[in-house]
């Protein structure tokens, strides 16, 4: 659960107002003629942006140690920069030390806390990457993820093929397509929600049957694609067969309790051409025979 945004922000607002009140009551106002605009913009801007970052962090992350550290750090930096900025408007008697304390402790302390928070965030990210293993490679693009299976889409796949070819031009990389037989009947007879559940289950099943460096994508509809880095044709065919067998072994039960026997068609090829022509060729090869123009009439 995300923590409510308003409590920490209200605390920060209160602290900012108290700082303002402190300067307004304890200091003597400087005439506008001596205001240093560069300092005001620089320090005020720092305070403003640190506050915005705090709001973004709080609104997007679940609560916990990392979030608390990041929030405290950014909050302290906001207040430190604010105190620094208010310094430009009010002159504080030199014998008072509280203003040095405000600036000198809040800003470095905030940076230290933020750094600790970022360190733990890194640890947290390593743990999350374990979950994303075989779902993403090399770079992250959140818009590429499919809503139902949480797998990346065909755009992401095409870019990954190009990257993989550039990264290891001498090592072969291979691509497998897998298409579920008669998937449309599941949607027709049991509804689309059931079809979506099957796709989710299949994506988990396929992930379990892949190596850590492989990438599973939902190409479109009921067609999955697997990018196999540093894999030759024979190994790719073997992996394709393993995946097809895994789909056939799955004992799927619908919500209504019916047992569905699933099967799939697979094709595999070494990715030695452009992603576009490779995918065109594989998509052609995976089609059921009768659908191809010129295909023979067959009994259903």
């Amino acid at each position: 659960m995300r923590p409510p945004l308003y409590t920490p922000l209200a605390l920060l607002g209160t602290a900012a107002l108290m700082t303002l009140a402190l300067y307004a009551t304890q200091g003597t106002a400087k005439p506008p003629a001596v205001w240093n605009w560069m300092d005001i913009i620089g320090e005020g801007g720092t305070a403003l942006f640190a506050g915005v970052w705090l709001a973004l962090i709080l609104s997007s992350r679940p609560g916990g140690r990392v979030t608390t550290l990041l929030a405290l750090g950014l909050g302290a930096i906001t207040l430190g920069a604010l105190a620094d900025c208010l310094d430009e408007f009010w002159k504080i008697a030199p014998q008072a030390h509280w203003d040095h304390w405000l600036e000198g402790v809040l800003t470095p302390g905030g940076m230290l806390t933020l750094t600790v928070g970022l360190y733990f965030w890194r640890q947290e990210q390593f743990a999350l990457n374990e979950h994303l293993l075989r779902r993403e490679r090399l770079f992250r693009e959140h818009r590429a993820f499919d809503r139902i299976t949480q797998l990346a889409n065909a755009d992401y796949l095409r870019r990954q093929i190009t990257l993989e070819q550039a990264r290891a031009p001498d090592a072969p990389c291979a691509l497998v397509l897998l298409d579920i037989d008669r998937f449309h009947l599941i949607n027709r007879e049991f509804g689309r929600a059931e079809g979506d559940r099957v796709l989710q289950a299949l994506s988990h099943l396929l992930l379990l049957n892949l190596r850590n460096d492989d990438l599973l994508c939902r190409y479109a509809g009921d067609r999955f694609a697997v990018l196999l880095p540093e894999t030759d044709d024979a190994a790719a065919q073997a992996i394709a067969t393993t995946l097809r067998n895994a789909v056939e072994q799955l004992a799927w039960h619908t919500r209504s309790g019916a047992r569905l026997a699933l099967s799939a068609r697979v094709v595999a090829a070494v990715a030695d051409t452009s992603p576009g022509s490779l995918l065109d060729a594989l998509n052609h090869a995976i089609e059921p025979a009768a659908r191809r123009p010129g295909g023979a009439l067959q009994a259903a």
Partner: protein
Amino acid sequence: MPAPCYHADTPLIPAHYQPALVLEHARGLDLNSHVLLRHSGLFEEDFASEARALSPAQLLAMLANLAQHDAARDAAFQLGQQMLPGHYGAASLALMQSPDLGSALRLLVAHQAQLCPLLAPRLSIAGGEVSLDWFDSCGAGATKALLVDLHMTAVTAMCRWLGGEHLPWRYHFNRTRPRSPEHHQVHLGSALHFGEQTDSMRLDARWLDQPWPRGNARALALTQRELADTAGRRSLLQAVREQLFDTIRLPPTLEHTAQHFGVSPATLKRQLARHGTHFQALLDEVRTHVTLQLMQHGGLDHDAIASHLRFHDARSFRRAFQRWTGLGAASPCA
């Protein structure tokens, strides 16, 4: 005229037909209903009443809103899977009872007002080939590509389901190849031809009378009696096109066409303008179709086509053809 034609603002489509399908799809995507119904003049309550009917323009607005949503990139294909035969009264029942592809396609054309009110199918069989061409019914504008994908997927999926096997359709699209063709490949197949002059699905004519396992010709005859009153109803744009196809050799004029529909030329012009088009555009579209058919199946040369379409000579025909299509007239012959 057989049945009166409908316009973009005719309240024609019961809310629990195609609109309910779109609403349900949007709900599946967690898309807020007021986002979906924006600019359509509709509210969610409208869908509670079976008596409420939407205009084609309202359904079009819903689809356009849906298409803007990031998660709905494959909406045309997902909706297409469920659109036909659909649950649109006797017309859907008739499709379910079709004994073969030929009768299903003829039903689709005859009952387009119920089955596919936004995009009009036109069936032609020539040279051993079936062509199902799709035309804009109600001024779809930028949403036309989505409608074409939706309807081609719908017919493909319906034939696969009722016929029990994949048919080897070839698809022609009057637009450039999309950067991400994966949804077309998975839902339609790999016989995709972009950059063509028409939006059509083609197939060897021998598939037309292959019997379908669920077909029931006797029951279909009974259902068709129920449907007799509304058969042949089409949109204004499609009715004008059909009239142009019928009179293409006269050649047709705005005056004669308006007379056929019993309105003044000014009224017809105004009605076409309300659908975002004009008489000459429809005429050019129809002449392009006729020309391509004559070239592909008639084996006619430019002189013969020019005289068929009442051009002065082959040269002025070639100039006109280039204007309609951007192509030299030689290329489609090749």
